[in-house]
């Protein structure tokens, strides 16, 4: 019998699929506990204001109201990053955006809770508001949002002398572009249910991507030992990064349960989800690059200005991410990155699919498209001349292992016939091209520690069942399937034999969470390690019974047998019985710790990943020059997945990424007016429907990464990245105008066409970046391979 894989690589139905399509899946809001109360948050109506006084007496007096909380009840500050502990569950002194929570109630029903919220009297003193990067930086604007300045974070790093590399280059170009903020728009609104038991233990069920971090924050804010707190992540009805923070409603539900002794549920309204946000940062960027006349990059300077909203959230990491991955996508010998994140009076920004990298990706890919034209090199060739090498280290010390970017580029270029077709499209039609890379898991945890990032426990039973326990939470991406498929593959059992218990801090060992595209890679490796240990135990017992060497055994099709004589073997269950008789409980654990590969400089913790995925896309647009409307009939996208553990799930992630990217490219924008979110509703925040979805041709490129589980890398985020700039480049190919500002709306297209008609630069987009004093550049020694060349 062969050693071919039997489950890994198959497009199998994932274990949670039937529950989802039949309506049986219990999301957080589906949970109903006896005597449960309903919690509601009172939110700030002002973008920036001081809280003068809060009077809750009228709310408390309403029959059916069991508790009213204000900031004084939850005074401990928190934040997802240890360096940004700037949030309060309920604001105490100041509110920093419309929607910032101020007070909370628990009542026997939602009408009473709503009435109680209306009866809480808050006296605010309005402060001048900052609604844009420019306003945040303006002098004399009044009291800053936090501390003494609205600058949250500013960084400046340089790897080699970029000025020399660029000013001495045969060709130079500078571009300034803007990417508007947008939000995740998960179908499921955030919800949390908390219960405080007679045993003195608190349980929180929450629609969260990061139960472990919520667990830590609850311990901190409630000032309770983590050992008395249990966090269970419920199946997420979409996350996209929007449920990977610590949210006020989670902490408040827990506190209300503690105070009332009754279970409390808080489900956010859709409007509140827009305020919870943590979505895409609006980013203004400047990129300046030098090229040889052959189009080889000599050096690059990149500046980003992030509009962060009212709190830190993941913002320090987001800031670094806008600068980190330029070098994993292209071989850049000298590189400077300056980034600044500003506080503004808007809901806090954070990680959304691609965290901090879609914006610079847009900047770079549009920039390279322009350079290609100037140099007379086609856009595909220009990329091919600047590819990173597999098994190399970038100038900013990021370690690249497998790299299928060339194969991705060649695949989409060939399948779309990009080079021929872009010159032969009918009027208004165009093709655009772009590429990208992304992390397969952040190489460092949110809080510094030396422990594994993912852990799995496996226990097999006498009937042949396999219990798999892991902290990972399936947010729809299919992590449950990946865990089961890997364990089943290694143990030679069926997917149906795996019993999953996930994302329960009482029962499951740690997984850091479903963020940074880390779960397949890290939890997958942990599952593989645990399964291999269990298999070794089973083989040892089976070898004794079969009187052979354990190394001669194979596990497949629910049997353990001699590889050379497959008929010589026993069932998987018999092997378990043999092992259990010999040594008791058959169980093992496995874990995964990413290699310590960060470079020798401050800020090097953001960017390293055990492996990078690669993508290339060609987008076809249909532009109506008379109306400015842009439609996308077709997208070709190739993705270097390392290995597809389940190709159907990978294609699903790629298609979902394309769809989300088109929404960002063409319509989605989180915009504000009079200090308020302009349209916090699913009807008026325009996101594409199925009718706007293009035909998507997806090609999977397998590079079998040396460190990935069975060679797998990520699929959840990377494929979004090339699509947005490819749309912009396609619009240029179609009608000859540059929209250097996302989203590409019809009025912007017409404005650019009007410029073109006047004989002016056919472009819409920002013309300058603010005058800003970045900190002194930290000059970082380049890795040896770059200094030698």
């Amino acid at each position, binding site marked *: 019998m062969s050693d071919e894989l039997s489950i890994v690589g198959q497009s199998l139905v994932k274990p949670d699929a039937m529950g989802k399509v039949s309506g049986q899946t219990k999301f957080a*809001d589906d949970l*109903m506990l006896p005597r449960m109360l309903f919690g509601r948050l009172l*939110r700030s*109506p*002002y973008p920036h204001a001081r809280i003068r006084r809060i009077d809750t007496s009228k709310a408390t007096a309403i029959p059916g109201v069991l508790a009213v909380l204000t900031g004084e009840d939850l005074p401990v500050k928190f934040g997802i990053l240890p360096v940004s502990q700037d949030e309060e569950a309920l604001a105490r002194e100041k509110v920093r955006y*419309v929607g910032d929570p101020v007070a909370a109630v628990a009542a026997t029903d*939602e*009408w009473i809770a*709503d009435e109680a919220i209306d009866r809480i009297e808050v006296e605010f003193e309005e402060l001048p508001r900052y609604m844009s990067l420019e306003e945040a930086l303006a002098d004399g604007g009044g009291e800053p949002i936090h501390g003494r300045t609205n600058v949250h974070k500013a960084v400046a790093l340089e790897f080699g002398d970029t000025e020399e590399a660029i000013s001495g280059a045969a060709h130079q170009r500078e571009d300034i572009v803007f990417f508007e903020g947008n939000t995740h728009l998960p179908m499921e*609104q955030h919800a949390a249910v908390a219960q405080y038991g007679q045993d003195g233990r608190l349980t929180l069920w929450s629609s969260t991507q990061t139960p472990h971090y919520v667990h830590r924050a609850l311990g901190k804010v409630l000032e309770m030992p983590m050992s008395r707190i249990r966090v269970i992540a419920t199946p997420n009805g979409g996350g996209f990064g929007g449920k990977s923070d610590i949210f006020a409603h989670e902490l408040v539900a827990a506190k209300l349960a503690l105070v009332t002794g009754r279970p409390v*549920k808080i*489900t*956010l*309204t*859709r*409007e509140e989800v827009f305020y919870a946000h943590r979505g895409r940062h609006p980013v203004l960027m400047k990129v300046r690059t030098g090229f040889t006349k052959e189009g080889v990059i000599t050096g690059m300077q990149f500046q980003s200005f992030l509009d962060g909203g009212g709190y830190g959230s993941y913002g320090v990491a987001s800031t670094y991410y806008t600068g980190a991955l330029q070098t994993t996508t292209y071989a850049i010998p000298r590189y400077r990155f300056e980034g600044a994140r500003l506080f503004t009076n808007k809901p806090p920004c954070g990680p959304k699919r691609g965290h901090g990298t879609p914006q610079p990706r847009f900047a770079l890919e549009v920039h390279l498209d322009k350079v290609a034209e100037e140099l007379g090199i086609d856009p595909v060739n220009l990329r091919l001349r600047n590819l990173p090498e597999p098994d190399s280290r970038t100038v900013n010390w990021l370690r690249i292992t497998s790299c299928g970017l060339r194969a991705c580029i060649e695949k989409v270029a060939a399948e779309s016939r990009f080079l021929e077709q872009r010159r032969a499209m009918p009027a208004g039609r165009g093709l655009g091209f772009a590429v990208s890379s992304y992390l397969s898991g952040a190489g460092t945890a949110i809080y510094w520690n030396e422990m594994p990032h993912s852990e799995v426990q496996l226990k097999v039973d006498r009937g042949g069942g396999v219990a798999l326990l892991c902290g990972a939470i399936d947010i729809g991406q299919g992590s449950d399937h990946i865990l089961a498929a890997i364990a089943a593959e290694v143990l030679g059992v069926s997917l149906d034999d795996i019993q999953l218990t996930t994302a329960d801090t009482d029962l499951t060992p740690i997984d850091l969470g479903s963020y940074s595209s880390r779960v397949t890679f890290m939890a997958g490796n942990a599952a593989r390690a645990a399964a291999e240990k269990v298999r070794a135990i089973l083989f040892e017992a089976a070898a004794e019974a079969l009187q052979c060497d354990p190394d001669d055994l194979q596990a497949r099709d629910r049997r353990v047998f001699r590889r050379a004589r497959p008929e010589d073997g026993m069932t998987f269950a018999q092997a378990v019985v043999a092992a259990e008789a010999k040594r008791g409980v058959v169980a093992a654990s496995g874990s995964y710790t990413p290699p310590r590969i960060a470079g020798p400089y401050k800020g090097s913790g953001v960017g390293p990943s055990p492996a990078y995925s690669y993508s290339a896309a060609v987008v076809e647009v249909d532009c109506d*020059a*008379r*109306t*400015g409307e842009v439609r996308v009939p077709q997208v070709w996208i190739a993705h270097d997945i390392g290995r597809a553990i389940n190709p159907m799930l990978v294609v699903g992630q790629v298609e979902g990424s394309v769809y989300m990217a088109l929404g960002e490219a063409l*319509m989605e924008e989180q915009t504000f007016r*009079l200090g*308020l*979110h*302009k*349209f*916090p*509703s699913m*009807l*008026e925040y*325009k996101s*594409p*429907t*199925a*009718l*706007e979805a293009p035909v998507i041709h997806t090609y999977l490129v397998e590079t079998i990464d040396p460190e990935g589980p069975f060679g797998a890398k990520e699929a959840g985020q990377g494929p979004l990245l090339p699509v947005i700039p490819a749309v912009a480049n396609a619009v240029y190919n179609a009608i000859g105008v540059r929209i250097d500002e996302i989203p590409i*709306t*019809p*009025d912007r297209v*017409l*404005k650019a*066409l*009007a410029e073109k*008609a*006047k004989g002016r630069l056919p472009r819409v987009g920002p013309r300058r970046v603010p005058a800003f004093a970045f900190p002194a550049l930290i000059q970082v020694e380049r890795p040896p391979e770059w200094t030698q060349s």
Partner: protein
Amino acid sequence: MDPILVLRLPRLRYVQARTVEEAAAIVGSDGGRAMLIAGGTDLLPNLKRRQFDVATLVSLRGIPGWDAITGDPQAGMSLSAGATLDQVARHPAVLSGYRALAQAAGLVSTPQIRYMGTLGGNLMVDPRCNYYNQTFAWRKAVGFCLKKDGDICLVARSSPRCWAVSSSDTAPVAVAFAASVVLQGMAGTRRVRAAELYRDDGIDYTTRKRDEVITSVEFPAARTTTSAYWKLRRRGSFDFPIVGAAVVIWWEDGVVRDARGALSAVGSHPVDISSYLSSLRGVHPDERLIAELAAAADKPARPLDNTDLSHYWRKRMTRVFIERALRDAAGLDPQAGLLTAQLKS
């Protein structure tokens, strides 16, 4: 236990009327705190956002014959107000004689909404504004507006009136066809021309009296008629119109006997543009004439910054959509027109 809907309806009395008389009597005698409900697809979300102060909802769905569609294009048709938008969009006689009406009904929101929403409800869609179609908490934060709980218009601050936008797809079609709307109230039944059902005001947008129920819409005979409705919106589903252009042409011996048109979403009422189309009479229009008329017919369109996308763009798109509707009704390729929304260079 009830399913949990986080944005709750206010506590209400819900009455299912058995006759129109009963419905009229309840809404007419409840001190203005009762509202009629048919499909509820517009009303219920608005109620969740507390856009109305209502104590009682009077459902019309149990009234016998409430969804009947009778007649034919030869003699004229009568569509009961309770006919669903889906029924209207698919009805063979409507499709053959009143194509614009079928198009407009079929372009409303989503299939689910069209199964629930009714013709009468769509004619009475509460004018929309993105300062107004917001939750109570949002409107409170922005300081409320003229249309509900406030005293200024936030889109035109010096305006004494409300500029909420007439957002019905079927209303401009009814106006363009010169359909009649039958209203039954406590004092009896009356019939008004569709255009007379509306007032140019975002708050006081209808001449329907409180106690009146729209029972049916009567479309005149359409033996030699062509018509078209073109709807501008961001997406292919869900969205209300941000421009809607309805055109009806009555033909005689190969030339236009009469042409009428009306616009949606460019004012607080369906904007009648028939007077701009009068020079079509007696000719067989070519595309040049159509473009010329369409370019002028956007004059009464006054989009403001209170719906989706830029209002300057919507204004420039109005003439494009009038042209498309005219070309469509005249048998020309609607999208091959001469007009553009481009800025003048």
